[in-house]
């Protein structure tokens, strides 16, 4: 099975919303721990940069797909990593309908960017301070481990 359905109602409830972040949502992996890239593999990112967060996600078994060019893979689903340099990281995920959605921190899942527009491509979306687009990655269902 490929892309995930858009299911904000499942995430946007207090028991799941507050303690699951963008990484949980993008990977479709509930931990209730505000998951951090690389923590499960013992190699969490050392800095808030594309290179470090990407390496940490690879440690969690996400697959770097920098050439995906916004196209869904034949297996798994597509996610995108962006970084607020020195501040934070953020993830988007592509759904079955071709639209991108995200869960900013402990807030609700949304399909809108900072300009209030639907997200057709995270590279061109209004991402506020998350100015660095890092890469596309693929989540192979059942292969990853995050914490």
């Amino acid at each position, binding site marked *: 099975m490929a892309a995930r359905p858009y299911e904000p109602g499942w995430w946007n409830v207090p028991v799941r919303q507050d303690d699951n972040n963008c990484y949980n949502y993008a990977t479709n992996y509930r931990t209730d721990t505000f998951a951090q890239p690389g923590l499960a593999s013992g190699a969490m990112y050392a800095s808030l940069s594309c290179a470090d967060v990407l390496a940490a996600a690879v440690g969690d078994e996400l697959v770097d797909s920098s050439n995906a060019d916004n196209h869904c893979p034949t297996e798994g689903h597509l996610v995108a990593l962006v970084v607020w340099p020195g*501040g*934070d990281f953020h993830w988007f995920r592509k759904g079955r309908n071709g639209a991108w959605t995200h869960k*900013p*921190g402990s807030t609700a899942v949304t399909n809108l960017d900072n300009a209030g527009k639907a997200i057709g491509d995270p590279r061109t979306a209004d*991402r506020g*301070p998350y100015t660095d687009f890092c890469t596309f990655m693929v989540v192979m269902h059942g292969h990853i481990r995050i914490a």
Partner: protein
Amino acid sequence: MATSGSPEWTARALLFSGRPDPTWPVPKSAATEVHALWAALDPWSGAPSAAPPLGYRGCILRAPDGREWMAFGGAVTLTTPEGVEVRSDVERALERRLLNTAPPNLLPPLEF
């Protein structure tokens, strides 16, 4: 984030997506100043402006008794067990005072 019954005043900047939001203890003297600013605010008319999904989304002050003030976009919302009250803070003085209680280098530069 502090839970209801925490013995100290705490603040939380609603800021990040991947990392947990920054939180910090607020000295009682500063909390008293924030409360005085709140007391001087006029009622807000209309709905508070919505924050964008990514980036700075406001700042929260939480009292030991669980009362919570959330400041963003020129409005301050007080939430108590009795209900919700919104007041106008066009100059964002309360929000700035609250953010200024953060320890040095805890928060990135914020523009508003």
